[in-house]
């Protein structure tokens, strides 16, 4: 099972590269997405104790993150064939290959039990996502790709140095390879404090760059702005989740070593900064995809803020990972549809989407309401609980700042969204053949539906998984929920 999750997408990537028919190739994506999700569900259903010496395996935390990525991939994959058919001028051989490659590498990352392997997986996901950003093959997408590569590579290099620092912290304490997470966590007391702290700072900066935390997010608006909505959705919910997971694993080691308080302060600070920074750039943002990119910066901030608060907030930060991924896919894909229909993604050209593309317009509007924390969607549940977690644990200042920032972001986003969705379509509009069709809207409706369901009702197995995942994040080893084969 462990290996199937990794090998099936990677093999499919090779097949996708070899297949010459574009239509057939596009359908490999949803087929593999469903297969991956199926295998993952079977793997998650059969819990078994994972031996401490295992190099690979799904624990509750890795399983949860991979489940989010797999569902997100399915949504994007079912959207892909219809979207790619709208872009016959662009060859999608590389795109399909890289998308599938990403799924395989994300599975590798989720199951890695060693910081070195996790780092390798993270590095390779950077590489496979670079060609995705370059999909449009124009100057603007080239610029975005270059920024993504340079900034992302520096981030990943710092994460490597941080990983080496933590290895040195273990080395000082007399621990030797293999330094799996379990081993590092069990022997937390032995790790050398200065190196551990320095290592955490570096990994936070490094993986934080990949997540897009301010002020290291500068690649994000460009990358998300210039790629198809399909890729934007997968980057905003998938690649960032991978980096978040890699960071959480290191955080768990730091917390197990008793340095949690130090790490949490940093996380809260980075979270606040990201939300505030995103708010500033959302005000009067005229580009809808860049708006969504800043929204992604904001939500990465919410994730680390929640982890930094700990307890209830940390659990709901993990839940927010799913909420954010689902709603972001609705937003990015509907923004992609609107972009197709108007041949622009900028105000004042894009107005009156409710008239011109009613379904996508409604989805964009509902997605906006959901992501800014309107009940009964899932982000409301997580944002509410993170705020109440912060306030109830004495973080009065942090908790109130969190709420104020959420309010400000709602106002800033609504200004742009209202203009895009309502209003009359401008007179000098460009005629495009795009019309909302079931193939380009049904996956979005499913995603929004899932976000609605999760906001109201949480299936019990998922609840249990989330509970165990959040204890793992806090540095407590729980062998019971681990699963293998």
């Amino acid at each position, binding site marked *: 099972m462990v290996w199937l999750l990794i090998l099936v997408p990677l093999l499919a990537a090779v097949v996708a590269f070899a297949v010459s028919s574009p239509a057939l190739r596009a359908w490999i994506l949803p087929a593999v997405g469903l297969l991956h999700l199926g295998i993952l569900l079977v793997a998650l259903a059969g819990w078994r104790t994972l031996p401490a010496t295992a190099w690979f395996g799904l624990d509750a935390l890795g399983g949860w993150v991979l489940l989010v990525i797999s569902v997100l991939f399915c949504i994007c994959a079912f959207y892909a064939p219809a979207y790619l058919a709208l872009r016959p001028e662009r060859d999608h051989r590389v795109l399909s290959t890289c998308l599938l490659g990403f799924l395989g590498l994300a599975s590798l990352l989720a199951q890695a039990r060693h910081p*070195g392997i996790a*780092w*390798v997986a993270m*590095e*390779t996901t950077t*590489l496979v996502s*670079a060609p995705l950003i*370059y999909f449009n093959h124009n*100057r*603007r997408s*080239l*610029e*975005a*790709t*270059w*920024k993504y*590569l*340079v900034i992302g*590579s*520096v981030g*990943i*290099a710092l994460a*490597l*140095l941080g*990983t*080496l*620092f933590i*290895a*040195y912290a273990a*080395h*000082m304490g007399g621990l*030797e*390879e293999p*330094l799996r997470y379990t081993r590092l966590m069990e022997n937390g007391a032995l790790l*050398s404090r*200065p*190196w551990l702290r*320095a290592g955490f700072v570096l990994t936070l900066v490094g993986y934080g760059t990949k997540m897009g935390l301010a002020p290291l997010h500068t690649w994000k*608006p*460009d990358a998300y*702005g*210039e790629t198809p909505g399909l890729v934007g959705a997968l980057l905003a919910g998938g690649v960032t989740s991978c980096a978040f997971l890699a960071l959480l694993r290191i955080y768990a080691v730091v917390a197990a070593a008793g340095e949690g308080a130090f790490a949490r302060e940093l996380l809260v600070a980075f979270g606040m900064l990201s939300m505030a920074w995103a708010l500033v*750039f959302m005000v009067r*943002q005229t580009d809808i995809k*860049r708006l969504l990119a800043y929204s992604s910066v904001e939500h990465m901030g919410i994730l680390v803020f929640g982890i930094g608060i700990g307890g209830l907030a940390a659990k709901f930060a993990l839940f927010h990972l799913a909420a954010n991924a689902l709603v972001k896919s609705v937003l990015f894909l509907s923004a992609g549809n609107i972009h197709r229909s108007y041949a622009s993604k900028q105000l004042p050209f894009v107005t009156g989407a409710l008239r011109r593309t009613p379904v996508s317009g409604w989805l964009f509007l509902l997605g906006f309401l959901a992501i800014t924390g309107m009940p009964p969607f899932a982000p409301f549940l997580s944002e509410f609980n993170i705020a109440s977690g912060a306030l109830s644990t004495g973080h009065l200042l942090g908790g109130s700042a969190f709420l104020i920032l959420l309010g400000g972001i709602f106002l800033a986003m609504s200004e742009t969204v209202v203009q895009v969705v309502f209003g009359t379509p401008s007179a000098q509009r460009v005629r495009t053949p795009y019309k909302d069709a079931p193939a380009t809207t049904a996956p979005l409706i499913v995603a929004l539906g899932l976000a609605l369901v999760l906001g109201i009702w949480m299936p019990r197995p998922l609840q249990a998984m989330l509970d165990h995942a959040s204890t793992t994040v806090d540095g407590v080893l729980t062998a019971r929920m681990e699963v293998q084969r």
Partner: protein
Amino acid sequence: MLPDLLIALTMLSNFSLVATSRVSKAIQFAVLQGVLLGLMPLAMGLGRHFHIVLLAIAAVTVKGWFIPFLFRRALRQVHIQREVDPYIGYTVSLMLCALGTGLSLVLAHNLPLKAGTEYTLLVPASLATLFTGFLLLVSRRKALTQVVGYLVLENGIYLFGLLLVEDMPALVEAGILLDLFVGIFVMGIVINHIRVAFDSTDTRHLAELKD
């Protein structure tokens, strides 16, 4: 003795890197630094481990031959000679580099080393080189010089890796080689695209996207 000399030379080459305006000189210094560092494990007396010898050979080959080869090819095609008008001038860069080196010494002073470690200069040199690479990355306009910056940053990580390579060879070697080879390789491909699209590798052309 020899390792300390190599480390000192590495730190000197940091200064040369930030002070030079000729792109080809910057590349030469980065290559020199890479080769010096490639020889480090042998100078440190780690030559008895076969895998470390392999790492040294790989590092010297990639940094001394493969990367200069890629750079020379790119340079020939774009006809650039000088880094004109960098974001941060050469004098200021030099002062920042000195400041960074000083800070690295202070920072390294606060990080204890395992008892019996001979090479106390490794950590400050690693941090200083890392800082230099970062400085080059943010202060230069040409895509090629930015890649040189990345290479220098990578050299800094390699220096730190030398502290651990004897005890945790797999982690260090896989990390460093993958980071180096893949990073440079992919950036090389993108530079090629930039050259085709803009007929130059000046990243100033890449300034359309902003808020």
